[in-house]
């Protein structure tokens, strides 16, 4: 029942949020607020579901069918996100357990600071670095933006990976450190078990639940990053449909639902991935 209510609230929220720009009529000297255009748009959308009009959008006098076009946009976003998510989880787990043992405060400072940097700062600095290297050596390491011919791949993936990876590394490193102070570790040590064995079978297995608990936040951060990355690298992904086609109410609503679906796919995909890691590494 709870799930049903939250789903209904989400749908209503998406319908209202995308319609908010419609309720303000802005003129040079004042702003009028009218709810009528929003209600009309919602009614039009719902009646358009049956005629198919709600699944059309327009760009420069041409009409496109949403179902025919969304596939390519969705697939691109999904591929970038899925790849970045898997790399982020692996590096987060590995570096998290390594840095927990190093206990270097300056290392914590460095990665912590990297974690607080906004995504767009990292992206713009990466782009500039590539341009700068190209100017000095004449070697183009990666594409700075997507052109008509081919999309940029390397830099977007790096940008999508850094923030979730650093976030996971920091939190999992703290968790690992905390677990190392627990009494069951002392017991295992007293029994003469090897260090590597204790790390893998006793500490690592107890870190996994924290990773699972943090997964919603990680995926939310990644989706937020996706907007910035696709925008700054000019990638033809899902978020482009929200910003490059003017304010077309049905298109915006559909795209928001596509975003929610993307979120769900990445979240459950990662859950599956973590399950596989658990099954292969930990044994009773």
């Amino acid at each position, binding site marked *: 029942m709870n799930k049903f209510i939250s*789903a209904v609230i989400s749908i209503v929220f998406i319908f209202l949020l995308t319609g908010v720009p419609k309720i303000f009529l*802005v003129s040079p000297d004042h702003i009028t607020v009218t709810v009528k255009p929003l209600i009309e748009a919602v009614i039009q959308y719902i009646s358009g579901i049956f005629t198919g009009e709600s699944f059309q959008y327009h760009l420069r006098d041409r009409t496109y069918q949403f179902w025919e076009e969304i596939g390519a946009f969705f697939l691109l976003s999904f591929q970038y996100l899925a790849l970045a998510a898997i790399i982020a989880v692996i590096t987060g787990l590995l570096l998290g357990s390594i840095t927990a043992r190093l206990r270097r405060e300056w290392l914590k400072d460095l990665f912590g600071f990297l974690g607080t940097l906004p995504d*767009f700062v990292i992206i713009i600095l990466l782009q*500039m670095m590539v341009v700068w290297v190209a100017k000095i050596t004449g070697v183009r390491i990666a594409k700075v933006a997507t052109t008509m011919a081919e999309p940029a791949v390397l830099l977007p993936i790096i940008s999508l990976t850094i923030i979730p990876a650093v976030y996971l590394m920091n939190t999992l490193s703290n968790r690992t450190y905390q677990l190392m102070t627990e009494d069951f570790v002392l017991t295992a040590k007293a029994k003469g078990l090897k260090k590597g064995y204790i790390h893998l079978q006793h500490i690592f297995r107890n870190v996994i639940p924290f990773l699972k608990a943090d997964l919603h936040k990680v995926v939310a951060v990644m989706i*937020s990053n996706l907007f910035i990355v696709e925008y700054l690298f000019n990638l033809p992904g899902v978020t482009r449909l929200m910003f490059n086609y003017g304010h077309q109410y049905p298109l915006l609503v559909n795209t928001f639902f596509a975003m*929610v679906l993307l979120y769900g796919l990445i979240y459950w995909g990662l859950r599956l991935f973590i399950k596989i890691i658990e099954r292969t590494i930990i044994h009773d």
Partner: protein
Amino acid sequence: MTKKNQMLNLRLWIGLILSTFFLLVALFGPLIAPYHPDDAEEIKIIETDQGKKMISPPLPPSSEHLFGTDRWGFDLLTLLLYGAKYTIFTALGVALARIVIGGAIGLYSGMASEQSRFQLKMGPLGSIPTFVIVYFLLVAINTNSPFSPLTLILIQGAVMTVLGLPAVISVVSEKTRNLKQQLYVTASQSMGASHSQVARRHIFPLLKENLLILFINEIIAVLNLLGQLGIFQLFLGGTLFKVDIAGEDYLSVTHEWAGLIGQSRGYIMVHQWIVVFPILAFVLAIFSFYMLARGLEQKYQAQYHRPPHI
């Protein structure tokens, strides 16, 4: 007390000094600015050894313009100094409002009995980033707006405060619930202390430290949010949308830092100083607050430290 505790808390001091510096810049920036934000460099023709040479903005960094000028000839250092107050004080104000309101609600719901406690279940809504919500709420009234910059800042500040509340409330109520289980709290409760007495005498004094660190982290979070909105041309205090022969331009009305980054994010190949200096200012501000948070964390954590077994 170990030797480490007696050592100077370097991070705290760096954070304090840099944060104070940014506060001073925000307060007195316009007084020390070398130019007026409306003074633009015009196209000039100067005599050189090779003959006449035309100089037109954007001018690179020089002794006259330490950070260079933008495409219209405005001095970047001046713009940054004038815009600082909007960025810094909005971040401080929104973070403070989130902590005061969210902290109060969180403390209250953490003290309440298990049934009535605050439940944070975002469901599918968690997949919509905060900046996207702010963007759709404000995009219509923020571009070429009839409202004054101050009105727009207050509206945007209120929206950002409300959207940040759930996170603060859940952290504070969680922490309160943890502290409530401490022995001295149950002892004082069994001796007849009321809810408000427990909250005031036992919970809040310990929560204070967490709230301070949370406050600074919220400042960083608000700066992040402002920056993301800036990338999508929703500038704090209003966006000016202009179409001229050079193309479409989105300009920041207030010259706040996220706006300066957002309006010039295209300068990656050429004239990089136009975007580099605003980014440096922005990153340094985040760095100083980060150092402050880290310094405080270390100061408090030294009290509860347990060494690892392996």
